[in-house]
């Protein structure tokens, strides 16, 4: 009994007081909780800033990819506009996956845009039974350098569809 009392007195008089301030000051526990709260707030704010900046990056890549798709589409507008029956050939107008690679940013590692094209299909005019215009769809896919996980929700794919009228008729 005497030994227990002695030990508790020893603990009470030891240096570390974790809680139970009687003198109106801040206890160590309070500082610890404050530290944790500030740390959590810093991490959350830091992550928000990082997230916002990455979103702007992905958005910028999307804008650049859209321009690449637009250029590819212009090529096909030209081909069809200047075409004739049999040109472009059926083989050329068939759907193609990842048929062209374009470097988006020469960073390390570089971001490469893969272009794909849907089948180029004629849309008939119901009155004349002739080809009214052609439908062309081109899309681009790319991979962000820090993986797809981050941008999974917004996607790394852009697509454009256009209708090309042709001067000739079949």
């Amino acid at each position, binding site marked *: 009994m005497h030994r227990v009392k002695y030990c508790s007195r020893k603990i009470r*008089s030891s240096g570390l007081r974790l809680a139970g301030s009687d003198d109106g000051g801040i206890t*160590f526990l309070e500082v610890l909780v404050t530290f944790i709260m*500030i740390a959590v707030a810093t991490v959350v704010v830091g992550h928000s800033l990082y997230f916002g900046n990455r979103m702007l990056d992905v958005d910028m890549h999307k804008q650049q990819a859209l321009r690449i798709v637009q250029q590819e589409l212009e090529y096909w507008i030209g081909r069809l506009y200047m075409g004739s029956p049999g040109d472009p050939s059926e083989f050329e107008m068939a759907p193609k996956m990842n048929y062209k690679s374009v470097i988006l940013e020469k960073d390390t590692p570089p971001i490469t845009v893969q272009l794909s094209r849907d089948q180029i299909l004629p849309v008939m005019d119901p009155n004349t039974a002739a080809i009214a215009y052609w439908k062309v769809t081109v899309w681009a896919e790319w991979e962000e350098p820090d993986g797809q996980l981050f941008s999974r929700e917004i996607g790394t794919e852009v697509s454009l569809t256009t209708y090309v009228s042709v001067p000739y008729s079949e």
Partner: protein
Amino acid sequence: MMARVRKIWMKNFFHTDEGWTFIEATFSIVLISVVFLGFSITLLNFREWMNRSWAIRCMDQYANDFMSHLDNLMQYGTNMGTNPNQYGLGSFWISITNFNQYPFEVLDSTLYSFSAKPTEGIFVAAGNSAPVPFDQDFPLDEWKYKHRFTIEDFHYEPFFELNRPPLFNQAMGQVYLTIRYERLGGLDFLSETFMDEYSIVKEYRIATFMKNHVDQPE
């Protein structure tokens, strides 16, 4: 004697009911230092990151504005060609014509000339007028002489694809624009921090099929 000194020392530094103990105060200082050091490093890194993003976005914005403007002109373009070099960079012209085909009638026709000065941006001249800057804000330096934007390449290149008729290749106009961003290293007096040297080069390209080139009469 020693036991008494130790007792007084222990009482003063590790055991008092009137405030923090020495260990508590030391721990608190260490923790708060860690928090503020970490936070400062995060802010500095983020500042650097934002600075680079800002530069890239400035270039993108400028190039995209110009490309969109040029794309719009090329939709009505009949011809494009290369001018003699001006200011050390490529220069080209594009003629814009609005016309009716049946019967053929030219409604409006203008010749635009584009040229670029490496540190002053792209200049546009419509008809016989003097060249004016495409964007007054170039070179985009808000903190004078710390951030340098330079146009490294600006030229028109005839499109070429084997097995395509010359008319198609002539109608596909393409223009290249390369911008370099460079941040000078050294002490930044505004923020009193040392900034590393950083540079990035971006190339932009536009290609548009000019239907008017095909449709114009011989």
